């Protein structure tokens, strides 16, 4: 918020990074202090009022007819510019809060030597290694800095991420082997559809029916076309039905959140 006033354009990136960090701490501290000043019995009311007003901006902006000349109404600019900036700042706050919460939790694990404390140590090591190498890269264009960052990024972040996700393939094979049993007519139908979609999603499946013509009636029986038909017709019908249900649920959920009607673990806690 104040960063653009304090730091001049063209300043080194690490000055920007430090200014943003300072801005974050000052603004976050000020907002937190203001919230603590409000008596506890009014805090929920305050949060509910802010939530309602924030939701109202987009609702009113959507429903008020726009000026035909500009295509905008009196709220469009505010909703799309000011609120966008505010949401970006709030998202950044959420990121900072997440980092603080993560480090606090694992810091306690380390301090009390709880079971698995070495994992918390690994987290601290990885976190600060990435953070420091990131700042080092921002401070100058030295090859050592960028090489260190690239090595940590590829070795510590990207490779384990891809590895963890790829392990799912092994479970899928095992699960498909156990789940697809022809116990009933419906299960047999599902198995047949799964075979077609599996074969139609890989080149070898297409190769099996490559002898059929690409145009005319017989082309409908090519594996890729049968696959696309299953995905585009029966799958789409089912998906539309599910989507309608999900959207109605989301609408109800949005209304409950907007009007602060939601009840449950978090919403009933003392602020």
């Amino acid at each position: 918020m104040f960063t653009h006033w304090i730091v001049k354009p063209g300043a080194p990136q690490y000055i920007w990074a430090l200014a943003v960090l300072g801005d974050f701490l000052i603004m976050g501290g000020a907002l937190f202090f203001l919230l603590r000043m409000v008596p506890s019995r009014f805090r929920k009311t305050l949060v509910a009022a802010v939530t309602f007003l924030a939701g109202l901006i987009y609702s009113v902006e959507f429903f008020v007819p726009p000026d035909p000349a500009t295509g905008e109404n009196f709220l469009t600019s505010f909703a799309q510019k000011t609120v966008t900036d505010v949401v970006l700042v709030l998202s950044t706050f959420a990121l900072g809060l997440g980092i603080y919460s993560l480090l606090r939790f694992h810091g306690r694990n380390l301090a009390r030597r709880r079971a698995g404390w070495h994992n918390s140590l690994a987290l601290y090591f990885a976190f600060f290694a990435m953070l420091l190498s990131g700042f080092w890269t921002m401070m100058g264009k030295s090859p050592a800095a960028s090489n260190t960052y690239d090595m940590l990024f590829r070795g510590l972040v990207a490779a384990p991420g891809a590895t963890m996700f790829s392990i799912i393939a092994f479970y899928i094979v095992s699960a498909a082997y156990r789940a697809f049993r022809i116990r009933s007519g419906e299960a047999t139908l599902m198995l047949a559809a799964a075979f077609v979609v599996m074969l139609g999603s890989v080149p070898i499946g297409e190769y099996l029916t490559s002898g059929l013509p690409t145009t005319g009636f017989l082309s409908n029986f090519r594996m890729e076309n049968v696959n696309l038909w299953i995905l585009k017709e029966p799958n789409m019908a089912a998906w539309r039905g599910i989507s309608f249900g999900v959207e109605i649920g989301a609408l109800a959920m949005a209304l409950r959140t907007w009007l602060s009607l939601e009840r449950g673990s978090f919403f009933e806690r003392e602020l």
Partner: protein
Amino acid sequence: METENRSRELTTTDRILRAFERLQHIDRRVMYALLAVVVAVPLIWNFKQPVVVTWPVQGAYDTIEKMPADKLAIIDIVWDSGTVAESRPQTEALIRHLMLRNKKFAIVAFMPQGNKLAYDSAKRIGSELGKEYGKDWIHWGYRPGGAMIQFMMGLGRDIPGTVKSDIEGKPVTSYPIMKGIKSIKNGDVGVIAEVTPSGTLDYWIAYVYGSYRTPLIYCPTAVMAPEGYNPLDAGQIKGMLTGMKGAAEYESLLGRQDFATRAAGALSTSHLLIIVLIIAGNIGYISSRRRRSES
């Protein structure tokens, strides 16, 4: 004598059924080992297969071909290292196509890891094809996913005002590529391609396509593809690259055999393994049911 023969026959059938029954209890470690082998072998020995281009991929290709050269394409990165095997070949195929046709594009990432991975890919392909950063392409950097909708709406109204700076922290207006680029509303964006394993396509449809009719291309992972057929059928997206196979088809349209084409072989063998295992499991299941009913 006849009863004795019949009894011996039953015993033989019984023995065969018992042998088949074992097929429904294959040790999972055997399956894991088989999968590792059938994935590794085609990747090592480059198991080539013919790739048939399907109409959703052709639609995506044609949309980029038709994009006027004075407009900007946006590649939206919503993937990270978890889906790098599928999402990176899709991203690279799109980048290569745009660069080969001298069409300007901007990358924007809503995932921190995808931000750098896509940047690295674009830099590599750019240096290979002699394209200059800031003139032929630009990377707008990472934006928090929580502010995705506001960012999209902002692009509709004012691109430089919303993006402000690129991945290097420099004002986007200082780059030649951004000259004359005002907003999506102004018609400055020709194509938006979303590469993602998550369900964020609806936001582009609701907040950008709904208002400005900017052509959209969807590049989901294979498991997320079913949700793309509704907007594809409605004409809200012009094309779709489904997972690794979609990327392989796109590479085939570009006349190349990059990673996706090579990996499509591994995809084929792993799918075949799953089918063989399912058939084996069902033979075991049927044998067991038959033996139980006979006994």
